[in-house]
């Protein structure tokens, strides 16, 4: 899969502006998703926690 290359501040800002307009804001329903852990196991779905616990989403990488 070809990812949009982010090689400098300009391309980074372009990427952020493109997707930030559709990102959820306070009061919006959070987009549901399902992901696997770093071992490719233990699927988790955001909506699994509905009516159970609030969820803190922490996005990041190693660099």
């Amino acid at each position, binding site marked *: *899969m070809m*990812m949009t*290359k*982010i*090689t*400098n*501040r300009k*391309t*980074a800002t372009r*990427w*952020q502006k493109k*997707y*930030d307009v*559709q*990102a*959820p*804001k*306070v*009061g*919006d*329903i*959070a*987009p*549901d*998703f399902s*992901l*696997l*852990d*770093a*071992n*490719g196991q*233990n699927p*988790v779905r*955001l*909506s699994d*926690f*509905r*009516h*159970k*616990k*609030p*969820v*803190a*989403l*922490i*996005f*990041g*990488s*190693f*660099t």
Partner: protein
Amino acid sequence: MRGTVSLTDIYAKYHEQVQFLPIYIREAHPVDGWWFGGNLFTKKLMKTLAPKVAMDVHDPQTIEQRRQVAGTCETSLSYGVGTYVDEMDDAVNKSYAAWPTRLYLIDTDGVVVYAAGLGPYDFHPGKLEKAIENHL
């Protein structure tokens, strides 16, 4: 990591009441992208502001590579909580405009109650903690 409050501290304090989901997304500053390691100034800056970040990681090209880097990152940062990995289509990253880093708090109805601004400038764990305190 900005401010005096770390995510590790927040997790330790609230993990019984809040579900923490760290999500590994595409690399911010890989060697083959917007690399900070090739410039002495940015290299020193990163080491000062975020000493645990890696400077020698290439952008994973497969989901297996991505999981491997995510696992190394999880071990290195020692948040004490399992990391989930975005797929290679960056679908979750895109839907939350999460790159390079971002914080959200979702309530039990699935509604966003805290949405940090774009990272890294609005990455403030202390604000997430305040949001948790206000929400609980």
